[in-house]
């Protein structure tokens, strides 16, 4: 019985030393070294798909800032915090990063998994955060340092419902995977469908990656919906819609903004065939694809860092989610420049100042232009690759949403638009 005690103590010692060593490091805010931007995402675990989206934001954003000479003459570095798809691990990872990294100035994230756990902490540490968490709870957030420039999950669902109403569908069915990413968008769809008065004929929740969904497909066909609203991962969609086609016939399919991606389209196209895909599939995406110099800059940045992004690189060009994140980085950097400080408690209020429209403000589309204009003493409004960032009183900004179709060998083609006002009118 003695031996294990000694062994345990012996193993304790290195840890205590490590902890002591770490205690000397750490700290946030203004110092003379590089400016740290933290990216919180799930790099491992169930939601590890977030990692490639995070990369498509971080590397182009940092590239653009670095090319223009950094922030306040200092280099900007990326600090990745892995939530491991688990709030408990997110907390320790964030705590460890805060303790051991110096010069943290801003945060991208937290995501849906870690938001409840990390938002209070980051707010307390006066770290401006551009969250990607879609929970409606943050629509009216009281956290001063929380900013969101992506629509909350319900907004996309409500936009889809409005589009369905416009198309004249009398009834719809929902087909959603039970994975976290897909389920997050379902409540908004259901609420939106009810609000516009369309009948919800059937709801199918698919366990991802099953060998067959024939039972679900049969039930859906029996309910005879005029259209299907869907989000799931690619393989699940391929299996389900492939079987639906075999068992009966396809109806118009409306994908949420979580669907347009290479890993979704390829299996689905393969399963139902190119012509059917083109004929039936539409997606309602957040971020009306704008054409402005910011988009050009973003695409150039993507190409500039293509070695670090998931292949094929073309999926990131004009990707509205990536563009929002890229704009978030540019906004943080410009706010720091405008405030002449990397300390969150100082530059936080400049975030609104560099993005809100106003008389006499110079409109800029790139970080370089914004930095130069600020240096020349002008006030600026940054209009990003996802459009203008119009933060309301609760620090939320989301723009119009676009309905897109996807012809073969071409990118997305916009066939309709739903504005923020229309969505908010639904309540």
């Amino acid at each position, binding site marked *: 019985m003695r031996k294990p005690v000694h062994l345990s103590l012996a193993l304790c010692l290195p840890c205590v030393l490590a902890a002591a060593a770490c205690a000397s490091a750490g700290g946030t805010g203004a110092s003379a070294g590089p400016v740290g931007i933290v990216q919180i995402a799930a790099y491992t675990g169930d939601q590890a798909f977030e990692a490639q989206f995070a990369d498509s934001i971080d590397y182009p954003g940092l590239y653009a800032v670095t090319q223009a000479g950094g922030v306040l003459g200092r280099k900007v570095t990326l600090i990745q915090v892995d939530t491991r798809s688990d709030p408990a691990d997110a907390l320790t990872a964030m705590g460890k990063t805060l303790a051991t990294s110096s010069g943290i100035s801003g945060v991208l994230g937290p995501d849906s998994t870690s938001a409840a756990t990390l938002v209070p902490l980051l707010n307390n540490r006066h770290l401006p955060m551009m969250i990607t968490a879609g929970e409606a709870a943050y629509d009216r957030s009281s956290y001063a340092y929380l900013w969101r420039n992506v629509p909350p999950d319900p907004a996309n669902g409500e936009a889809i419902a409005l589009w369905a109403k416009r198309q004249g569908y009398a009834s719809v069915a929902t087909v959603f995977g039970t994975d976290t990413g897909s389920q*997050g968008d379902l*409540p908004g769809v259901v*609420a939106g469908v009810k609000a516009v008065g369309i009948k919800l004929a059937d709801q199918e929740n698919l366990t991802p990656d099953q060998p067959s969904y024939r039972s679900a497909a049969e039930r859906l066909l029996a309910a005879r919906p005029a259209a299907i609203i869907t989000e799931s991962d690619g393989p699940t969609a391929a299996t389900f819609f492939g079987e639906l086609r075999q068992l009966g016939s396809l109806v118009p399919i409306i994908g949420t903004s979580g669907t347009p991606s290479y890993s979704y389209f390829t299996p689905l196209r393969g399963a139902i065939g190119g012509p059917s895909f083109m004929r039936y599939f539409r997606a309602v995406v957040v971020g009306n694809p704008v054409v402005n110099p910011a988009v050009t800059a973003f695409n150039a940045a993507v190409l500039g860092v293509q070695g670090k992004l998931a292949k094929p690189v073309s999926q990131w060009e004009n990707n509205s989610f990536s563009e929002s994140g890229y704009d978030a980085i540019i906004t943080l950097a410009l706010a720091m420049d405008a405030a002449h400080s990397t300390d969150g408690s100082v530059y936080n209020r400049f975030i609104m100042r560099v993005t809100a429209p106003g008389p006499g403000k110079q409109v800029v589309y790139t970080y370089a232009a914004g930095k130069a204009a600020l240096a020349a003493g002008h006030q600026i409004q940054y209009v990003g690759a996802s459009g203008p960032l119009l933060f309301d009183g609760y620090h939320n900004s989301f723009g119009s949403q676009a309905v897109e179709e996807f012809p073969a060998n071409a990118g997305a083609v916009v066939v309709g638009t739903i504005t923020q006002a229309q969505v908010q009118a639904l309540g």
Partner: protein
Amino acid sequence: MSFYISTLLVYFFVDALLAWALNMQFGWGGIPNFALIMFQAAGAYAAAVVSLGPDTGAGAFQRYVFGSSLPFPLPLVVATLAGGLLALIVGSFSLRRIRRDYQAAILLIVSLIVTGLVTNVVGLVNGSNGLTGVPRPLSGVLSRLTYDGYQWAYAAWTAVIAAAVYLLVARLGSSPWGRALRAVRDNEDAAATIGLNPVSLRLQAFVIGGMICGLSGGLLAEFLASWSPAAWGYAETFAVFTAIILGGVGNTWGVVLGTLLVQVIFLQVPTFLPQVGYTGLIDALQWVLIGSLWLVCLAIRPRGLIPARRPVVSREARR
């Protein structure tokens, strides 16, 4: 740094509770509870759904049962009861007199099936998205504390609970009940002949352990303000097993040290290593390390788990 340390302290006490529960069930009772983490999850979900407000139906962003907005400390009581209730249900069909390896496999399968159920029946506890926004206990009353101050207060609170549970567990261990339980583990037939009821004793140990796990879950969910299936994968049970094997099965203090070694040191130190390979590679390899550590423990420090030598049939050429 103080934030990091206080977080680790809370996790340490929460994990120590799990270790004592498993020690009671497996170390003293001989029950191979490979579904341990499920009971912690039951407590966590219970605490979450009774301290959250109503979910307001299909339009809200979370769907779950109950939603009773109970104030502290009632959610913890509910969590404890939930863990015990689940243990009662599971125990009543899996604690029959059955080969231990079958029992282990069945408990493991129950854990996997329940994970599947929770993920797919979204209205229960919001499926794979989990629950978020769980109110932190006494945050109104303690609002004068700083953020870090609250962390340390919570760590102190979990320490108090851990101390109370330790006293309970230690008393149970040295009581006639504890001795009877170990007697049943060692020789069920002999124990039955002297009037002990093996099934009943094991069920009691299982339920008490379940209650402790439920309490542990409630504490953790209220600390994290959220809870989702990612937090209770089947592999988490094995971190606890490793802790008690390393620290000394059956030894109440030993498993505390084992928890410190495994849950705190072994799983946190690698995060300080410089990044190798892709982000998260080292984290992903942690379970590989746990499995390897387990094999090493079983090989060199069996601690009474592995009895006398036996012949191995495939080596007959040498005999």
